[in-house]
């Protein structure tokens, strides 16, 4: 089953009567459970594509089916609910709330859900454990290292167990060791838990953790092929 299906997707920004086309009629599908990397130089439209796929932005023309549902027909409140339930985001800059505990940061998405209060702590703890930060649960976000912060952000993206996780340059602000840890976690989420993962990156090495690489250039698909020598991060979580 395809979780994401894009047909002739076009996006252009209109600003003061100046029309800037960004994406020109893209067509592709992402099957459920796939780990896909979207690559391209800056300005290629890869971030815009991710924002559209993650319901953060709207498309100008074409169709976007998420789990066979036509997203372009949904109103803002439904889109907000889908952002909460169907997808999780991981950003380059982590975007944690400052001076707030790991626990509260991870629980944040539940504020906008119907999950009963009683279940929330367990869900948060499970998510925190899955990124190996149980011992840091009560620390404030500013007391953590960059790698730890990104793992908190992953736990936050995971807490509602969304089918798809979007990661926008997740290793961009990290040293190579922390970056490797983050990629290992993402790969496990994909392989062990079956999450579909859409990774946006410009680093070839990072992209090789995925099964498939979609390259964009100037708003068009330049290539779309499986990764030949996939980099598998096996073994224990790198400490």
């Amino acid at each position, binding site marked *: 089953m395809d979780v994401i299906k894009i047909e002739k997707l076009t996006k252009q920004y209109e600003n003061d009567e100046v029309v800037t086309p960004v994406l020109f009629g893209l067509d592709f599908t992402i099957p459920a459970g796939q780990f896909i990397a979207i690559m391209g130089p800056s300005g290629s439209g890869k971030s815009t594509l991710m924002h559209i796929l993650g319901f953060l*932005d709207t498309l100008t023309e074409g169709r976007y089916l998420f789990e066979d549902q036509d997203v372009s027909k949904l109103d803002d409140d439904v889109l907000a609910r889908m952002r909460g339930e169907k997808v999780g985001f991981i950003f380059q800059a982590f*975007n944690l709330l400052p001076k707030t505990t790991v626990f509260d940061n991870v629980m944040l998405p539940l504020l*906008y859900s119907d999950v009963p209060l009683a279940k929330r702590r367990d869900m948060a703890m499970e998510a925190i454990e899955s990124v190996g930060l149980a011992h840091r649960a009560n620390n404030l976000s500013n007391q953590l290292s960059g790698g730890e912060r990104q793992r908190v952000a992953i736990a936050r993206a995971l807490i509602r167990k969304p089918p798809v996780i979007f990661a926008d340059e997740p290793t961009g602000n990290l040293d190579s060791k922390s970056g490797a840890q983050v990629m290992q976690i993402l790969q496990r989420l994909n392989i062990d838990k079956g999450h579909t993962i859409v990774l946006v990156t410009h680093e070839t090495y990072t992209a090789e953790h995925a099964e498939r690489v979609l390259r964009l250039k100037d708003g068009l698909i330049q290539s779309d092929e499986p990764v030949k020598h996939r980099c598998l991060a096996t073994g224990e979580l790198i400490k």
Partner: protein
Amino acid sequence: MLWRDLADSSWQSLIRTRNRSLLTMFGIVVGIAAVILSLSIGEAAQSFILSQISSFGSDKLIIHPGPKTQTENPSPFVEESLVMKDIKRLKKESAWMPMVSGEMMQSDMIVGEGVSKNISLLGTLPDEILIGGYDMLQGNFITDSDVESHTRSVVLGYSLADEIFGQASPLGQSVKVGSNTYRVIGVMDKAGTQFFQNLDELAYIPATTMIDLYGKKSFEYLIAKTNLPLDESARRIEDIMREQHDIDNPTGDLAKDDFFVMTQADAIKTVSQVTSVLQILLSSIAAISLLVGGIGIMNIMFVSVTERVSEIGLRKAIGARYKDVLRQFLTEATILTIVGGIAGIILGSLLAFIAIQVINYYQPGWVFTVSWVGALLGVAVSSIIGLTFGYLPARKAAKLSPIEALRAE
């Protein structure tokens, strides 16, 4: 989004930026405190004034010189129309008006036993003490024969006697007022402040003596006690006075008279007008300070929205709807104003309490009460301010597009 989550999340946001929250709240605290302070003092002033007027009693009439002008206010040009002859005439109506007195005032220096002091000297008549219902501590009040023979007798107020003579008995002693020597014939018991005058600091002399020594021609006003209804008494007094003063006024046009009769109810009406103007004045000043506090909140909220753009973007990315963000910012503003409002009520009441203690020191008889109207108004106004001044920034935050917000790193 659950209300509990909303309150929790807003509270945590305020705690994260506690310095800014406190400063914002300070504006509201000062605004509300100003409202409470001015309303409390206004209410205390009003009840003080009314209690002073009520102490005058509901069976008494005051006759003022000069016509009653059209605006129902006493004429500023005091006519010297109320003379001893009028009192003698009114005294003849003792069947329904058992007591009649008059008052004339003069400031002068009293000297006795080496103590000298500026005082108010009251030229009056024997019925004064009966009308006022005051008691004598020692000796007698001014008598009819004192009035007849223009004696140089003086009756001292309680504190005045105490200041000059201390423990010694003042009866029969001499004091000098101005250049004249008087014999003390009596000391009044404590009477306190009545009708805005501290009676314990006064000295009383016969009205006739004051006319002789100070060249007075008339009384400042006459007071009468009646056992008829006040309206009926007032009408009878008007008839008698017109006859006395040869005023031809069959239609009862008050503007033609050279006197006017006032009752307690009239006095209350006049004073209420003055005090409500006072209340309006104080309230408008307070309202301006509230407005300034509100604008402060709006400013801070706008800054807060700008500072937290990426947080708003994140919240939207994890499922917050337009109304979730709007409610969060409104709740933050409301918490700030309500907490600030309560602190303001406490601070304002405290300041009002202190202010009234200070006023009481100079003019006894003021009573502190918490202005409940003010407190209620304060809380209501502060929450309305929170919602209105918080709304624009909150809407701005809620309307941010999630990607633009996320990009604003």
